[in-house]
C-alpha cells in the first residue's frame, strides 16, 4: 500500500520514475550480499559492484577497465584465461570453484563463481556476468579440519601402542604401524578381516575375547585385559588390551589399544624370582630376620626369630622391639637408630639382651639396615644372632683365667715360702720387697701389667737361694770369698728355675738382673743403664732398702733414714734415679710402712 502511495506521489510530482528506479536498483546491486561484475569479450571489467570492490580491497575505479585476470592468483591466471576464451566462444566449461583472488593488501580470498553469458538484442555474446561468493572462511575451516585429521592420522600411525579400528563385529577398518608389527600382518592383510578370522586368539584367550565382543556390542568399554596374541609367524606375545566404542562418521566403531607387555612380564618374573629368593632366605635363615618400623613396632619376623623369642607370629606383630628389652638397654636402641638414620646401614653390630615370652633372657647380636619402598625409607630390617652361648663361654673363659691366675699366684707364694723356710733370716724378706717394689712401681705410674710383673718377680726374686747350702745362708758373720761367689749364683739359678714358666711378663729376666747396678758394678752379667730392665732396677732399689732395715745374722738392722741415705748417695751411680726418687717419696711424703713384719 505504501509502495503504491509513493508511486502515486512520484508520478504526481512529475519526476522521472524510471530514473529513480534505476538508481534504487544500482544501490541494491552495489550492496548486494554477493560480488558481481560484468566482463566484455576480452575479459575487461566493465561493471563491478561495491561488494566486489570491498571483497578485493580496491575501489571500483581501480577495478574498472582492467582485465579481471590481473586480480587472480598468478598460478591460476593462464588456466582462467583459457577457460574464459572457451566460455566466450560458446563452449561448455565446468563451473569455477576455488578461484583464488589476490587482494590489494596481498592477502588471498577463495571464491566460487557462477557466471552467465551476456548477449545483445540479436543474441550475440557481448560479455560474461559473474557472481562470486567468498568462501574463504569455509576454506580455512576445511584446511583446519584437514590439518587436525593429518595430526590425528600421524598420532594414530606412530603411536607406541597398537591402535586398531574395527566395526562392531570386530572387522578391521584401520590399523596403525605398531598394530601391524605386533600381529605380524600387513595392513592389506588385515583390512576387512577380524581377529577371530585370523585366529589371533586361541583357548582361554579366545573365550575371553568373545566376552569382550559381547561387551563391545553393548557399547561397553573394556580392559585393560591381558591376552596372549598369536602372530602371523605363529609365535606368541603377551599384550594388554583396552577397547572403547567410538563414533567415526556417525558409525559406531571399536577403537582397540594393545600394548606389548613382554618386557613388563619379564621384569615381573625377575622381580618375582628375587622375591622368592628373599623369601626363602627369610624363611630358612638360621639367624633371626625381623622388620620393624621407625618406632620399633614389628612388621614381620622369620621362624628363627619366633623360635628364639618363643612368640607366635601373631604375638610378635603386636610387640615393639623396645618392649622386649630391659630399661637400661633402651639408650642402646636409640643410639643404633641414630646410626641407622645417618648411614642407612649399621657399620658395627649391636648387642641386646632380650626377654623371651617365657621370661628368660637371650643375648642377641644384631645388625640392621634401612629398607626402602618406592624409593623412600619405610622400615628397618635387622638380622639377629643368638649369642647367649657365646656370652656364656666368654664368661666361663674369664672365670677360668681368673682361677688360673689364682692358681699361679698360689704357686708363686708356695715357691717363695719354700726359700724362706730354708733361710729364716730372710723370712718375709721377699714379701716385703714385693710390697715396696709394687708401691714404687705404682708411684712411678707404670702400666698395671708391668706393676703386676714387678710384684710377682719381687716375691720370688731370691728363689735361686734354694740351691745355696743352708750353712752358708744361715751362718753369722762375714762370708768367705768362695761362699760369697756361691751366694752370687742365686740370681742365675733363679732365672734357670723360672725361665721355662710361661709368665705374662719377663719375670725370669727381672729375677736374673735384680743385682745388676746401673754403673755396671752389679752381677752376674755386669749389665749397665738401660740394659737393665725397669722392673729389675726398681726391684734392686727395693731389695737394698728392705735388706738394710732388716736384722741380719752378721749385723743389726739399719734405720730407714740410713737406708734412704745409702740409695740417695748412689742415685744415678748404682741405683736408677727414678726408682730412688719414688722410693724416697714413698717414705717421706706418703709415709710408707711395711705391713708385713
Amino acid at each position, binding site marked *: 500500500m505504501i509502495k503504491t502511495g509513493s508511486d502515486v506521489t512520484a508520478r504526481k510530482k512529475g519526476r522521472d520514475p524510471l530514473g529513480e528506479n534505476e538508481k534504487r536498483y544500482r544501490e541494491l546491486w552495489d550492496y548486494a550480499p554477493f560480488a558481481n561484475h560484468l566482463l566484455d569479450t576480452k575479459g575487461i571489467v566493465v561493471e563491478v559492484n561495491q561488494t566486489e570492490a570491498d571483497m578485493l580491497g580496491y575501489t571500483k575505479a581501480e577495478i574498472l577497465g582492467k582485465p579481471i585476470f590481473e586480480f587472480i592468483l598468478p598460478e591460476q591466471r593462464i588456466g582462467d584465461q583459457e577457460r574464459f576464451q572457451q566460455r566466450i566462444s560458446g563452449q561448455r566449461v565446468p563451473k569455477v570453484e576455488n578461484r583464488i583472488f589476490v587482494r590489494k593488501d596481498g592477502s588471498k580470498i577463495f571464491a566460487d563463481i557462477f557466471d552467465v553469458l551476456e548477449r545483445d538484442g540479436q543474441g550475440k555474446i557481448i560479455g560474461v556476468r559473474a557472481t562470486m561468493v567468498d568462501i574463504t572462511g569455509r576454506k580455512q575451516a576445511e584446511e583446519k579440519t584437514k590439518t587436525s585429521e593429518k595430526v590425528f592420522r600421524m598420532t594414530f600411525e606412530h603411536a607406541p601402542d597398537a591402535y586398531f579400528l574395527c566395526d*562392531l*563385529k*570386530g*572387522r578391521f577398518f584401520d590399523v596403525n604401524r605398531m598394530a601391524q608389527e605386533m600381529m605380524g600382518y600387513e595392513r592389506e592383510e588385515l583390512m576387512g*578381516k*577380524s581377529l*577371530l*578370522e*585370523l*585366529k589371533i586368539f*586361541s*583357548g*582361554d584367550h*579366545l*573365550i*575371553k*575375547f*568373545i*566376552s*569382550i*565382543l*559381547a*561387551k563391545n*556390542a*553393548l557399547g561397553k568399554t573394556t580392559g585393560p585385559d591381558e591376552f596372549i596374541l598369536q602372530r602371523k609367524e605363529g609365535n606368541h606375545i603377551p599384550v594388554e588390551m583396552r577397547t572403547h566404542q567410538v563414533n567415526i562418521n556417525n558409525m559406531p566403531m571399536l577403537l582397540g589399544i594393545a600394548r606389548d607387555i613382554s618386557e613388563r612380564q619379564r621384569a615381573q618374573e625377575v622381580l618375582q624370582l628375587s622375591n622368592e629368593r628373599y623369601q626363602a632366605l627369610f624363611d630358612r635363615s638360621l639367624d633371626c630376620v625381623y622388620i620393624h618400623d621407625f618406632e620399633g613396632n614389628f612388621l614381620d619376623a622369620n621362624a628363627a626369630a619366633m623360635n628364639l623369642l618363643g612368640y607366635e607370629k601373631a604375638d610378635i606383630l603386636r610387640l615393639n622391639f623396645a618392649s622386649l628389652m630391659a630399661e637400661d638397654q633402651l639408650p642402646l636402641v636409640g643410639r643404633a637408630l641414630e646410626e641407622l638414620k645417618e648411614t642407612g646401614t649399621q657399620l658395627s653390630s649391636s648387642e641386646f639382651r632380650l626377654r623371651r615370652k617365657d621370661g628368660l633372657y637371650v643375648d642377641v647380636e644384631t645388625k640392621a639396615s634401612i629398607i626402602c619402598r618406592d624409593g623412600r625409607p619405610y622400615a628397618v630390617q635387622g638380622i639377629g644372632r643368638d649369642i647367649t652361648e657365646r656370652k656364656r663361654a666368654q664368661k666361663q673363659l674369664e672365670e677360668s683365667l681368673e682361677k688360673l691366675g689364682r692358681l699361679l699366684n698360689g704357686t708363686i707364694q708356695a715357691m717363695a715360702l719354700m726359700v724362706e723356710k730354708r733361710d729364716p733370716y730372710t723370712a718375709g724378706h721377699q714379701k716385703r720387697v714385693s710390697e715396696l717394689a709394687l708401691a714404687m712401681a705404682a708411684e712411678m705410674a707404670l702400666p698395671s701389667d708391668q706393676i703386676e710383673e714387678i710384684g710377682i718377680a719381687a716375691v720370688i726374686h731370691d728363689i735361686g737361694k734354694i740351691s745355696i747350702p743352708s750353712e752358708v745362708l744361715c751362718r753369722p758373720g762375714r762370708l768367705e770369698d768362695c761362699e760369697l761367689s756361691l751366694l752370687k749364683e742365686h740370681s742365675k739359678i733363679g732365672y734357670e728355675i723360672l725361665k721355662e714358666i710361661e709368665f705374662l711378663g719377663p719375670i725370669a729376666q727381672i729375677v736374673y738382673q735384680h743385682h745388676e747396678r746401673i754403673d755396671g758394678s752389679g752381677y752376674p752379667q755386669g749389665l749397665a743403664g738401660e740394659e737393665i730392665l725397669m722392673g729389675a732396677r726398681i726391684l734392686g732399689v727395693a731389695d737394698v732398702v728392705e735388706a738394710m732395715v732388716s736384722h741380719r745374722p752378721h749385723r743389726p738392722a739399719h734405720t730407714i733414714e740410713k737406708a734412704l741415705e745409702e740409695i740417695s748417695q748412689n742415685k744415678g751411680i748404682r741405683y736408677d734415679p727414678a726408682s730412688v726418687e719414688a722410693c724416697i717419696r714413698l717414705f717421706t711424703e706418703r709415709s710408707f710402712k711395711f705391713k708385713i713384719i
Partner: protein
Amino acid sequence: MEKKEILIVDDDIVTLSMLKTTLAGAGYEVLTASNGLEAIRLSKEHLPFLIILDIMMPDIDGGEVAGNLKKDPKTKDIPIIFLSSLISENEQKADHRKDFVSLLAKPYNRTKLLDEIRKYYYGTDSRKLD
C-alpha cells in the same frame, strides 16, 4: 557314545525353540537355558556332551559362561559352539576344535550346525548319526 544331551543357551526364545526342534529332530536330547547363570548351573548338573552358546546375553555373556566352565575340571572339556550374530561367515572357518571351541554365525545353517556337532560326537566328519 551314549550321552546325546546338548545344552542350548540363548536369551531369545525363538532361537531357542528353533534350535530345539532342529536338534531333537536329529536325535539329540536337548536342555535349554535362557541366561548365563542357568547355563552354568545346568552344565555342572547335567554335564552335557556339548553346549551351543549365544554370545550376547544380558548379565553374563557367552564368553563369561565359557570362561567359567573352562575353569572347572569337570566341565572344561565340554565342546562349546558359539552361535552368534557377532560371528561372520568368514570367522566360522577358523578352526579352534583343539580347544573344544567352534564359532558359528547366526542365523545358522542347519546342515553346518549338525555337521559341527557330529565332528565333536565322532571326533571325525562322519555322518553316521542320521
